[in-house]
């Protein structure tokens, strides 16, 4: 009864059928399952990146550390950054985008469900590819190099990429990095970039096209807006880094000389291209968290979000300005003085939209009846820590000040306050807030608050002292400092703080695993929320909405539950509870047939092919290199063509009335039906 493709195209594989178990995950195109896979994968990488950070902190806990060699230290700070940025924060945000976009917009799925699965698999294999450098890559010492630590290849961890996440030229060139580890980083980032570009297009189209009735752009939740802005940033910044990484790979693998100064190449060009991407990337990391906080704060203050349009437009302004400030990462490079002044000014202007957001959040809390539940605590922590990180950021905009701070721990302190205190606190706020939606159970509130307390303490102990360590002159990316610098005591505090953070994450994991199975069953509307995802049962049914929602206002769900009294205060309508139960009851029991996108094997094949292709490029001089490239490309092409021949949708419930069947068939070629292609099913690849 499922729909039939316009014509049968022979495929090697049987159509996947499993709906539970291992194969259902491998072949799924359901945005919720993909979100869960993104989430767990990202969290796995978060643990890895965290362990790397702890190793670094053990080394730096006291002066003249001997725990790590210089080479290991270089590798660990590089993979720590790459992991946290590309393998944790971005995919974790992507997990939220995937799970929530269709639910918040009132849609069945994202616009391109199979492309969505492709993004995930490419991301996963990209991550595996980067970490496979642990086993396959090499890091021989450069000619004439005299780094203490000696032969870099022999030690464990000695073969991971070690050029910093920014892979600055000329250090990343073959002269100074003769092994293959940099190739793993460059091609791995390339793969991850492709995954992000695909999901960016997917999310943008989803947001523009999959909105339910009445969901005008300015009625969308702020989280959806921030997702849209992030997707735009990805869309327009990733092509730049793609070319830069191609140039680096070509330099290393095929003998081009873009960044080789002795042949007339230009290492500064790398810096420009990298930061042309790298600065928008910073907002790619923080805006999703800002979106989540903007959802959490009003719910737990029991007030509408203050200045919704201002927050939305400020997000857009941050993104737009974010493209015009890249050179502030390069003030100590050779760029003209006037350009330095211009980029300093443009950087300072970013404080304006950021300030608008912060004032709006504070005004949202102001006078609210605040419930200090864990998500709220994390959101408040976000605001506090992000303000600190934002303020220290403004000090980098002042060029002479930046010259003093550049490459010191002051910078490390700054970006950890915005990325850890900001983005990661925001993500945890979201994880707690939507936990009942995901699992149908409540997390343990007490453990959640312990987690918050430890993490807030740990964050400030870890990253706070880095400010003054940096101002005292402690340089970044250096594996030892001597005792007579006097930097020892504060470094010990920093390292203790790092372990407190680790402990807090352990508490979180205990809470999560326990609550997922044994937590209290979540009530229908546990937070008295405002957005559409809370009008459906928890955990979310496969088809999302049993009844297509219609929206008449911003925070429509909340307006249905609340009225205003004479003084403008929100008053819960007496019938609100009954309304919530009725809505959720209706959404849990669909009365019509529901089309769901069909599972597919091809996304995972495409992702795997991409990884093989990357290996082939690194080893193209070996006899098996070229065959690997060919196999990789063939897997990519065949999976793309293969899914072109798969049916798009399957029908959710099988025994509903047969009438109208042919109308529901997206592939039917009824000659009487005057359908142009674009009227066919909305969910398609």
């Amino acid at each position, binding site marked *: 009864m499922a729909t039939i493709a316009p014509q049968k195209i022979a495929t090697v594989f049987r159509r996947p059928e499993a709906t539970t178990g291992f194969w259902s995950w491998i072949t799924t195109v359901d945005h919720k399952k993909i979100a869960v896979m993104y989430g767990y994968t990202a969290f796995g990488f978060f643990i890895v990146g965290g362990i790397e950070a702890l190793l670094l902190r053990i080394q730096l806990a006291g002066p003249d550390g001997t725990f790590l060699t210089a080479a290991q230290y270089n590798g660990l700070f590089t993979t720590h950054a790459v992991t946290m940025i590309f393998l944790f924060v971005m995919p974790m945000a992507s997990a939220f985008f995937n799970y929530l976009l269709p639910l918040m917009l009132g849609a069945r799925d994202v616009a391109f469900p199979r492309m969505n699965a492709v993004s995930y698999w490419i991301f996963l294999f990209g991550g595996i590819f980067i970490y496979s450098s642990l086993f396959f890559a090499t890091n021989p010492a450069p000619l004439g190099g005299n780094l203490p630590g000696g032969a870099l290849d022999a030690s464990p961890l000695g073969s991971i990429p070690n050029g910093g996440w920014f892979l600055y030229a000329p250090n990343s060139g073959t002269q100074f990095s003769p092994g293959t580890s940099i190739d793993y980083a460059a091609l791995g980032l390339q793969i991850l970039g492709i995954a992000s570009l695909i999901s960016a297009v997917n999310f*943008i189209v989803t947001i*523009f096209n999959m909105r339910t009735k009445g969901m005008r752009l300015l009625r969308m939740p702020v989280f959806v807006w921030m997702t849209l802005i992030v997707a735009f940033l990805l869309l327009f910044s*990733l092509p730049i880094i793609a*070319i830069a990484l191609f140039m680096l790979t070509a330099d290393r693998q095929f003998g081009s000389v873009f960044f080789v100064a002795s042949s007339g190449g230009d290492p500064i060009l790398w810096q420009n291209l990298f930061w042309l991407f790298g600065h928008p990337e910073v907002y790619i990391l923080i805006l999703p968290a800002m979106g989540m906080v903007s959802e959490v704060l009003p719910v737990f203050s029991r007030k509408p979000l203050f200045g919704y349009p201002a927050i939305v437009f400020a997000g857009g302004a941050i993104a737009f300005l974010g493209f015009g400030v890249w050179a502030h990462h390069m003030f100590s490079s050779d760029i003209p003085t006037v350009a330095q002044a211009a980029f300093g000014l443009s950087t300072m202007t970013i404080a304006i939209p950021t300030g608008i957001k912060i004032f709006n959040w504070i005004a949202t809390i102001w006078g609210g009846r605040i419930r200090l539940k864990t998500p709220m605590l994390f959101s408040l922590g976000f605001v506090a820590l992000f303000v600190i990180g934002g303020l220290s950021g403004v000090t980098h905009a002042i060029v002479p000040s930046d010259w003093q701070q550049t490459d010191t721990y002051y910078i490390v302190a700054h970006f950890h306050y915005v990325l850890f205190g900001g983005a990661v606190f925001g993500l945890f706020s979201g994880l707690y807030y939507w936990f009942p939606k995901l699992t149908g159970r409540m997390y343990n509130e007490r453990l959640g608050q312990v987690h918050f307390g430890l993490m807030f303490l740990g964050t400030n102990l870890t990253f706070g002292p880095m400010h003054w360590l940096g101002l005292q002159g402690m340089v970044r990316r250096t594996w030892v400092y001597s005792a007579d610098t006097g930097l020892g005591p504060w470094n010990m505090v920093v390292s203790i703080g790092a372990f407190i953070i680790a402990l807090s994450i352990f508490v979180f994991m205990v809470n999560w695993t326990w609550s997922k199975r044994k937590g209290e069953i979540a009530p229908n509307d546990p937070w008295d929320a405002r957005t559409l995802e809370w009008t459906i049962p928890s955990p979310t049914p496969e088809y999302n909405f049993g009844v297509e929602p219609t929206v008449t206002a911003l925070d429509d769900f909340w307006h249905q539950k609340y009225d205003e009294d004479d003084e403008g205060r929100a008053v819960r309508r007496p019938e609100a509870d009954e309304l919530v139960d009725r809505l959720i009851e209706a959404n849990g029991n669909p009365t019509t047939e529901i089309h769901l996108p069909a599972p597919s094997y091809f996304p995972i094949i495409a992702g795997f092919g991409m990884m093989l292709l990357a290996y082939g490029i690194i080893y193209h001089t070996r006899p098996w290199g070229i065959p690997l490239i060919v196999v990789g490309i063939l897997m990519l092409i065949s999976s793309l063509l293969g899914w072109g021949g798969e049916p798009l949708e399957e029908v959710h419930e099988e025994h509903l009335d047969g009438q109208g069947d042919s109308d529901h068939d997206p592939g039917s070629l009824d000659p009487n039906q005057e359908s142009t292609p*674009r009227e066919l099913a*909305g969910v398609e690849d």
Partner: protein
Amino acid sequence: MSDIVHDDLTESADDHDSHGHHESTGVDNRKLGMWFFLSSEFLFFGTLITNYLLFKGRDFGPGSIYPVEFYDIPFTSISSFVLLMSSLTMVLAHAALVRGDQNQTRTWLAATGMLGLVFVSGQFFEFTEFVNEGLKLTTNPAASAFFLLTGFHGIHVVVGVVLLLSLWGKSVRQPGGLSPEQGLSVELVGLYWHFVDIIWIVIFVVVYLIQ
């Protein structure tokens, strides 16, 4: 379902759109996605072109050579013209499909693919000539940038040719020609193809003619 579609046609998009099955903006998902993708490709080729402009006139020391010295403008003019005309055949293929003329669609699709192949072969020939005359990827950054830019453009053309040929193959194999669904694919491949063409319009002037 078709009732809903027709209701949708008479209403303005943003306010009265129906459920996710239909596009809130009134533009098909795939088409909207393609336009966004092409928009981001500006940044892709923008970086490549900038890269070339940055290096094309730099002093690489005594005896340095530049791609400009190797250009064969008459030859490149002809291949530019070929690519330009392939845009015409592409648009004719789409127009034929809209009319429902499957035969012409098939012909024009094949013609477009062939013209694309001619262009790529021309580029291959140009590269071979340059390399034989001593301009290689490894010569200097200007040469590297030239090969990377035109090479990536060439890869885009090749991808386009593959897409065109696969559509052409379907239109030959299937008894009724291309389905409406695949008609959208023709439109999308067309958009991509024209985009590759306009990028060459820019490259032809900025890289080849302005020296």
